[in-house]
């Protein structure tokens, strides 16, 4: 492996590992918002997609990518692309595990399939396991949590409130 190839591999790995500013236990790759990374000479072109239209973390994520690329002596060009629209189905298994360990119930799979069809999910009737004790005996407190991407729930067995990543 040449030095140049190694540098390219390193910067790509560094971009993939940029943490989400709101939930720093998960990387932008595992969250599914990193769409592509391309090294072209001195320029690293990165395509990301927002979770929600109004996600206020996008600027911080762009800055985070810019910082790790600059640390490799290169320059980042970040393109924020809306299509295809992000879905929680793009979240990796590793990302889901990291969320659960952090105390956030991961999103349920199949959101993208459901959203593409004409039938809306009844968003209130779902079984969500408590990330603290594992009980599925939980209820929703509010559809909207501390960030756009999360809802509030509570466990009816261990009585702890917790957040859930909304399937979208």
């Amino acid at each position, binding site marked *: 492996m040449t030095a140049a190839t190694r540098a390219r591999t390193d910067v790509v790995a560094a971009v993939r590992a940029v943490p989400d500013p709101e939930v720093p236990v998960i990387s932008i790759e595992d969250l599914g918002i990193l769409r592509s990374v391309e090294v072209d000479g001195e320029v690293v072109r990165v395509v990301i997609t927002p979770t929600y239209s109004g996600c206020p973390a996008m600027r911080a994520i762009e800055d985070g990518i810019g910082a790790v690329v600059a640390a490799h002596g290169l320059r980042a060009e970040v393109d924020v692309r809306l299509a295809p629209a*992000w879905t929680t189905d793009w979240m990796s298994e590793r990302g889901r595990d990291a969320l659960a360990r952090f105390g956030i119930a991961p999103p349920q799979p199949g959101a993208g399939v459901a959203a593409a069809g004409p039938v809306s999910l009844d*968003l209130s009737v779902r079984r969500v396991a408590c990330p603290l004790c594992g009980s599925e005996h939980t209820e929703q*407190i509010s559809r909207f949590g501390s960030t756009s991407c999360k809802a509030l729930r509570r466990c009816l067995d261990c009585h702890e409130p917790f957040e859930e990543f909304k399937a979208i």
Partner: protein
Amino acid sequence: MSGDVTWVGKAPESVVPEGDSLVAAYCLQLGDDALIYAQRLGEWISRAPQIEEDMALGNIGLDLLGQARALLTRSGELDGTGRGEDDLAYFRDEREFRCVHLVQQPRGDFAFEMARMVWFAAYQRELYAALTGSSDPVLAAIAAKAVKEVDYHRDHAEQWVLRLGDGTQESHERMQAALEVVLPYLAELFDDDAVSSAAAEAGIGVLPSSLHDAVVARVAALVERATLTLPDDSRWRSRGGRRGVHDQCMGYLLAEMQHIARSHPGATW
């Protein structure tokens, strides 16, 4: 609020734009609806009946603000003026805004907000679902993103209308009264204004009247489940928002929304 306005001299919308300018004008209308409703929803923070609702209404407003940013950015890219999203949001005067009257109405009680939201979200859900097929690829992408968000808004408002309508006598009465307060502002959502009609013709947009039946059917079924009654047609109705004719409340809303940006033009932080 008034009926049709008689113009002395040239009316501002007398020429319907074409091509890129038409996409820009259409995106501006949709973006203004989202922006002004986002501003109203932001007023709920610290005023909602419970802290979870502060967060919910703030989050819904944030989604709408995100949609508005994308739509206004698209409008500014294509209208030939080189204006960005902030220029359009903060440096236009009242008559240049193209939002409907429903979204600008002052904040009422919580039942009023749920009545407004249940209609507006049902309308936006049908609108964005149809716009995923827009011939403008950026507008289609914005719509595909927004339709998933609006699903949650609609569901949230519907759950509250059910709970309040089929709740206590007090909550039932206030929810019923709220349905009557928003009624005069609904017809305007489905008016085939000049820009929307031209946009629909060009495959860019959808004809507002084509959304009417699905939206009304959805809300009517919900209202019945909530043991409420859809009020009869009102004796008056709003009109003119798409031509820049607004209520008195709009000036106060814009003063609050715009004064910081106008006091410090070009400021960065």
